[in-house]
């Protein structure tokens, strides 16, 4: 069998087999390393959808300081981001933009729905311009309840997300 593989015409096959073996051997340690990298560099997109952004801003202030959990206040392009924190109400005008931002981000990407409005529509459930929850347009990983959530709640939500990433398998 090895002889068959060494044959130049089967070169591609051989590479893939060797690759498979290598991946199987390195999967666990490499996956751990990659996940470790992802856990500590969750960069959120700076897309504010409503009033919860005030508490998001407070969370990156000196008292709560989310940077120590690897959530860096993002000032860069969304091409460098891997986290969307949906900060509150998503209106019908904002929804296509939110989806567009999500689609433009590179994989892997995670979503935190922050605040009651982002989860179910909250106070604005009967408004004519508000989406009843953001999970209709983008897949949500962690829900952070509150109206608005305290910064501590947001931190707890991101730590839950980190747990989730640590346990997820690398593709």
């Amino acid at each position, binding site marked *: 069998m090895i002889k068959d593989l060494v044959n130049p015409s089967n070169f591609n096959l051989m590479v893939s087999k060797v690759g498979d073996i290598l991946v199987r051997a390195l999967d666990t340690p490499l996956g751990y390393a990659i996940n470790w990298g992802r856990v500590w560099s969750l960069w959120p997109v700076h897309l504010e959808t409503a009033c919860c952004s005030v508490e998001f801003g407070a969370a990156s202030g000196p008292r709560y300081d989310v940077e120590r959990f690897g959530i860096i206040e993002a000032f860069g392009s969304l091409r460098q981001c891997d986290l969307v924190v949906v900060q509150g*109400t998503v209106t019908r005008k904002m929804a296509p933009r939110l989806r567009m931002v999500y689609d433009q981000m590179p994989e892997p990407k995670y979503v935190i729905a922050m605040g009651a409005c982002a989860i179910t529509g909250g106070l604005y459930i009967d*408004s004519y311009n508000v989406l009843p929850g953001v999970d209709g347009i983008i897949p949500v990983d962690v829900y952070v309840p509150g109206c608005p959530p305290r910064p501590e709640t947001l931190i707890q939500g991101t730590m839950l997300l980190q747990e989730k990433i640590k346990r997820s398998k690398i593709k």
Partner: protein
Amino acid sequence: MSDQEERISETTRLGLEIVKEAEEDRLMTLSVGPQHPGSGHFRFTVKVDGDYIVDCDPDPGYVHRGEEKMCEYRNFIQNIPHLERPVIHDSSNITYSYSLAVEELVKIDVPRRAQFIRAIASELNRQVYTLYWLAIYGIFLGHSTMFMWPTGDRELLIDLLEALTGARVTHAYNIPGGVRNDIPYGFKDRCLRQVSYFEGRLKEYEDIFYNNPLLRQRTEGVAVLTKEDAIKLGVTGSVLRASGVPYDIRKAEPYDIYDEIDFNVQYMKTCDSFARAYVPLLDMRESCHIIRQLLDKMPESGEVRAKLQPNPKGPPGEAYRRVESGRGALGYYIVSDGTPRPYRVKISVGSFRNLLALPHLLVGSKLGDMPSVYWSLNYWPVEADR
């Protein structure tokens, strides 16, 4: 005209057309927002010619949640929590003018002590708002220290408000007829201590931020809004006062006990971005002064809430009341048809009025000045969209 001359003029015309098309091609349209590293939930398109902005078209409405329609389905008391959501970091002020309007419609008297507590809450809240605004202004200009310091000091004030009202930002504290509950034990001393500390900090802000030569270069003389234009455009709040109009609702139309308080309206005459950034700081200093007086003059005991019926309603009529919020005049126009629910509520907010100055100021200024001009307008998109 000879044949040759005609041909020449035809050529000139064509040449001019080509030049004109090339001119139009030089203009570039940039879309700013709604995802951008400043304040989100707002978009505007600018046309630039090289480095200069020649056209600006604001496109708000990303947080339009239909507050005014929702008001028609709830009674006067049920409306309070969702009405403060547009400015959750200035929530005492946005419910203040609502309470004043409802009191006028339902005809309630507010106890004297409650008037003082309301004013204290709204003054503290104004500072909380202005500090957040200042922090974002620091971010806009790339001054990270100015983000960290105000957000840190803001937490102390929020602690104070949390002790007073029970919530971090969404207080629902000013209600028609007074305030929700009395001040906690020891609040007065704590508040005084906080205010003294805070006044010292304001000096440090001035040193690190306002006297910073970089900030001065980026804001001084930039985007001048003259007094005449400011009046014509009907801007309000710090933007108006930075243009040399000493107008403050607390002075012009004193509500509750503001006519017993001694304070000056802070204004500047330089009319530029720097003045618009500096007037809020002067306001905060004056606000500390006001809080001291309020604490001093407050009656030691008494009612804090007039008794209301479960479903308060008044005779048919209308009311227009306004207060001075962190962003300027904040007015409520409420029409009542005699039922417990308002027939029509119109919220006239400072942000929406200041938005008109944005195209006016941006056209003709440089693209690099855009952040400092935009945020100096004291604009909070969520409030403008309602």
